[in-house]
């Protein structure tokens, strides 16, 4: 080996070792370039890759990617970019040039005094350029000796690119994994649910902040603790390989009652899952749980609301039924009895109407508390709805205890209660049925108690009744009668009788009161006393009342047309007709169809009707009055006879109840009352009518006292239309 070879070989060896040592593109190019500079004494160099084919070149410069720069401070900034480079510099064969300052000056380099370059093409698309202000001295064939190095570099570039692509993939994958890991860590840290991670034995390895928040245990206090103890639950075998979770395939979920360090108990819903190691064994368990205290409270509230009345908090009818089933089972075992007590408040509606619903609600709350005080557990007090309450009370011994309790509660209910500024007194009607004597199931007993309560109301209210079979029979009869009533309305089995109204002074017939009569197909004439309340109760009074109005108007118009032109007709109105709000329409329709003048119609309402009415129905009455219709206050004196009503509801006529007149000629008090009412009428400019006049003495007296009209058997009983026609002929009104 000659000296020259001895000089070249270590250099080529050094370059080869450098190239062979690198596995990534950027270090490969940088270190190779550095080594070439080191050996050649050129101070700076660059490597350009991805050169376009020389054949496509059109100008004197080319944009190509600078892949590496060593030795030039400013040119370094071009690494990774594709600046404009002189084509004469980057294209061409291996070349050593001492003076190429023109080409080199075009480079974006720190120093502008590069003059010499050594060009070493790597392959068709890459080149190494070494640059110096002055060509370094060398006696070696530098243009030829590096060719093997460049060939090796070309291969190394290819291999490094593949390796970089592979590494980039791995890094991307790692970054993705890292991102996932960070995300999971974030989920773990910020999860609202508590998370506990245990080892395979169930010892706590990690907990998240939510765990500490829910359990009250800081992470450091529970690390390495058995998870069940960390929770403070009574269970001992949930976590860990020997526990229940492992026995059920590694998964478990359920509700636990845990205990905080301060002793507070709270429910959680816990799910346990295993974490499998690569060999399939369980390496960890993950428990995720949430505090379900609020959910449980909400559920309890929902359950409560489903079974209780939200106002009084008393059991509702569903729960009362359940309690009855329980109580009746106990009674069956003990051989004892139960009372099902149905309490209905009398005239409760008037409190709602007059004082408002809030006051009504308060009254119901007070009544509920009074009932509960009277019948504590094991009795059940429930609210059936509206103003109705039910009580299921065990009966011990004879019935006297029950009756005593009933009397007591009626007394308690009737005690005045202060609601806001008002003192309110509420009476009650109570019906009672007994288990097992009056029935074996709740519905039957409730129906019987209801029947008894209705009986109590029918008896005038403010009383209590124990159910008996006769009551049931009557109820059934009423039910049947109601059905017949409905059919008769459709069949037209009703007729009107007319009782004349007569002027006290002169005895002239001024009009008539239309009175409804039911000609029952089988029973014959049915008393109004029997069917009118039933019609009111069933709502049939509304169509029946409309028929009465239409028929009375029609008949009166007929009479007036027949020459009794001053004849007037009085028709009774039911509270329900007013309440349904269709009265005006019904009246107007009757007048229109009959052609009767409004001034010939009188509508009679009772004091209780007035008492029961709202502003809307009062408005209806006033609007009818405005049409010219006369409004009469019927049965005056039997109710509140409040003067304020007379002021609020302008009426045209007062009808003095027959009860005052029956003894008027014998009883000084009655006489005084009647005279007072008559004076009141005169004072207010309201005409007066004395009802139920049966004797001439009565007629004479009221006439003397200034009553305007009278009505009663003394003059004539109510007559069918044909008979009344005959009466008119005998006592012509005009006449």
């Amino acid at each position, binding site marked *: *080996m000659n*000296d020259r070879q*001895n*000089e070249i*070989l*270590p*250099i080529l*060896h*050094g370059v080869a*070792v*450098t190239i062979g*040592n690198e596995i990534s593109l950027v270090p490969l190019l*940088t270190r190779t370039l*550095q*080594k070439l*500079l*080191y*050996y*050649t*004494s*050129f*101070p*700076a160099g660059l490597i350009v890759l991805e050169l376009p084919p020389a054949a496509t070149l059109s100008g004197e410069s080319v944009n190509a990617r600078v892949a590496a*720069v*060593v*030795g*030039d*401070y400013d*040119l*370094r900034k071009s690494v990774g970019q594709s600046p404009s480079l002189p084509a004469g510099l980057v294209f061409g064969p291996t070349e050593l040039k001492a003076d190429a300052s023109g080409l080199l000056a075009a480079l974006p380099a*720190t*120093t502008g005094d590069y003059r010499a370059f050594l060009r070493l093409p790597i392959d068709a698309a890459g080149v190494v350029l070494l640059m*110096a*202000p*002055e060509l*370094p*001295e*060398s*006696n*070696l064939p*530098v243009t030829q*000796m590096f060719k093997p190095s460049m060939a090796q570099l070309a291969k190394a570039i290819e291999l490094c690119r593949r390796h970089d692509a592979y590494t980039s993939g791995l890094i991307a994958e790692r970054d993705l994994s890292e991102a996932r890991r960070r995300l999971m860590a974030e989920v773990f840290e910020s999860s609202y649910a508590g998370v506990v991670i245990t080892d395979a034995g169930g010892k706590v390895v990690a907990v998240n902040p939510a765990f500490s928040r829910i359990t009250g245990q800081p992470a450091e206090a529970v690390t390495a603790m058995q998870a069940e103890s960390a929770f403070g639950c009574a269970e001992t075998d949930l976590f860990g390989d020997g526990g229940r979770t492992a026995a059920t395939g590694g998964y478990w979920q359920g509700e636990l009652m845990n205990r905080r360090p301060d002793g507070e108990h709270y429910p959680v819903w816990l799910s346990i899952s295993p974490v499998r190691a690569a060999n399939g064994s369980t390496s960890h368990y993950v428990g995720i749980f949430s505090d379900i205290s609020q959910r449980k409270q909400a559920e309890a509230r929902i359950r409560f609301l489903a079974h209780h009345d939200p106002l009084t908090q008393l059991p509702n009818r569903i729960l009362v039924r359940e309690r009855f089933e329980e109580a009746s089972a106990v009674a069956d075992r003990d051989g004892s009895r139960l009372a099902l007590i149905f309490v209905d408040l009398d005239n409760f509606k008037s409190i709602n109407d007059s004082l408002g619903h809030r006051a009504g609600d308060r009254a119901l709350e007070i009544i509920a508390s009074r009932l509960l005080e009277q019948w504590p557990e094991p009795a059940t007090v429930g609210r059936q709805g509206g103003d109705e309450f039910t009580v299921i009370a065990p009966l011990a011994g004879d019935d006297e205890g029950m009756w005593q309790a009933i009397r007591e509660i009626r007394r308690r209910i009737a005690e005045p209660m202060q609601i806001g500024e008002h003192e309110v007194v509420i009476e009650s009607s109570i019906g009672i049925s007994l288990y097992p004597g009056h029935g074996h199931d709740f519905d039957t007993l409730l129906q019987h108690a209801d029947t008894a309560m209705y009986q109590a109301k029918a008896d005038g209210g403010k009383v209590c009744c124990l159910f008996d079979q006769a009551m049931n029979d009557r109820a059934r009869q009423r039910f049947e009668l109601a059905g017949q009533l409905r059919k008769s309305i459709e069949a037209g089995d009703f007729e009107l009788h007319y009782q004349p109204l007569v002027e006290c002074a002169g005895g002239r017939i001024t009009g008539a009161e239309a009175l409804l009569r039911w000609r029952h197909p089988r029973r014959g004439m049915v008393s109004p006393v029997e069917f009118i309340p039933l019609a009111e109760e069933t709502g049939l009074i509304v169509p029946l009342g409309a028929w009465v109005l239409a028929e009375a108007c029609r008949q009166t118009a007929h009479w007036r047309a027949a020459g009794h032109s001053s004849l007037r007709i009085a028709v009774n109105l039911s509270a329900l007709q007013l309440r349904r709000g269709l009265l005006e329409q019904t009246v107007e329709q009757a007048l229109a169809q009959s052609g009767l003048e409004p001034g010939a119609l009188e509508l009679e309402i009772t004091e209780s009707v007035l008492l029961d009415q709202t502003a809307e129905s009062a408005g209806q009455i006033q609007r009818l009055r405005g049409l010219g219709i006369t409004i009469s206050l019927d049965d005056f004196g039997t109710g509140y006879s409040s003067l304020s009503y007379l002021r609020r509801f302008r009426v045209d006529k007062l009808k003095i109840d027959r009860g005052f007149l029956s003894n008027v000629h014998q009883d000084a008090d009655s006489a005084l009352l009647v005279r007072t009412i008559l004076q009141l009428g005169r004072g207010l400019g309201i005409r007066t009518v004395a009802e139920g006049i049966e004797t001439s003495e009565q007629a004479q007296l009221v006439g003397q006292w200034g009553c305007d009209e009278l009505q009663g058997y003394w003059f004539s009983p109510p007559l069918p239309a044909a008979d009344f026609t005959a009466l008119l002929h005998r006592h012509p009104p005009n006449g």
Partner: protein
Amino acid sequence: MQNSSMRYFPVWDAAAIEQTLREWDAAQPGSGVLALIPESDRVWVPALQDLCAQWHMPFGGGIFPSIIAEGGFRTAGLWLLRLGPSPYLALYPDLPHDPAGAAAMADTIALDLEPRLAKDRSEATLLLIFDALVPNIATLLDELYLRLANRVHYAGTNAGSESFRPMPCLIRDGTLAGNGVLVALLERHRGMIAEHGYRIPELSLLATSTDGNRIAQIDWRPAFEVYRELVRDQYGVAIDRDNFYRYSVRFPFGIVRANHQALVRIPVALDDAGALFCIGEVPPDSLLTLLEAPQVDSTHTVEALLRGLDQLNGESSGDALLLFYCAGRRQYLGIDSATAEVADITRRSGARFLAGATSLGEIGGTTLHGYPLFHNGALVAARW
């Protein structure tokens, strides 16, 4: 007679030193001080640090086997060289020895420097004084060159003990540290020239297994075993640890470069496994030449050195010269030849003042704008 920016003190004279500091501070407030201190007088380092601290003068320096003063090599006294106002001086101790660590350290040094470099785009020289026992100096130099490139000129020397035992040898203000590098930026400075003038009489190509500055094998045998045979064949002497350095300067390794010049690597130590250690690395697994009994052409060395200086600075050379002279070269040439070489440089450079130190490795380009290299056996010179 004294130069205004370099003062030699043949013995420790606190008053004289303080007077010098006072003068420099008065002439140019904020001036810094670079000290060259011989190994045997290193005890004065703390006192010198105190004085510089008192005068609030930035202070850097190195401890060398000897210093060059008054025409010869001195093992006593000290040189103080004045640095410009607010000089850039940074000490990086505890240098990492692995490639990644070296790259990171180069990043740190470059990032620290860049704001200073950005302030003034004029030429500057990066003067690097390494602890000679740093095993990866060439790597650090390569890494710095990747980052700073031709923004600065590179020059430097290695400090330390010629016994090659670890010794804190780098000074920065109140710190004295080893295994590091002192970085000084000489602004408006055109660099230094390194030259060794080793002639290569005959090339013996050796396959080596190397790691940094450690040559483990030569021609696939333990390095020391082969090396000992070579010395025995040449001189008939059996080398051991004690006389190793005396002979190794005659058998340095050469890293061949294309300009027919070799980078010299003088083995300076050996270990129990029979590996040889050099000052400065050799390329990994490289083919090295063994420079058997190289001839040192002093005349050529001095001429090349002075020509290089002229190229750097032009004909208008100043009257002061800074010189680092390889301790191994002095060992090889002998004290008389080395002293004569120094005298020749002084005479032919026209310098009226020459300050310097013996070095354990040298940094610099052999030509203008050359690739910065780490040498052994070289002289590094700069106008001051």
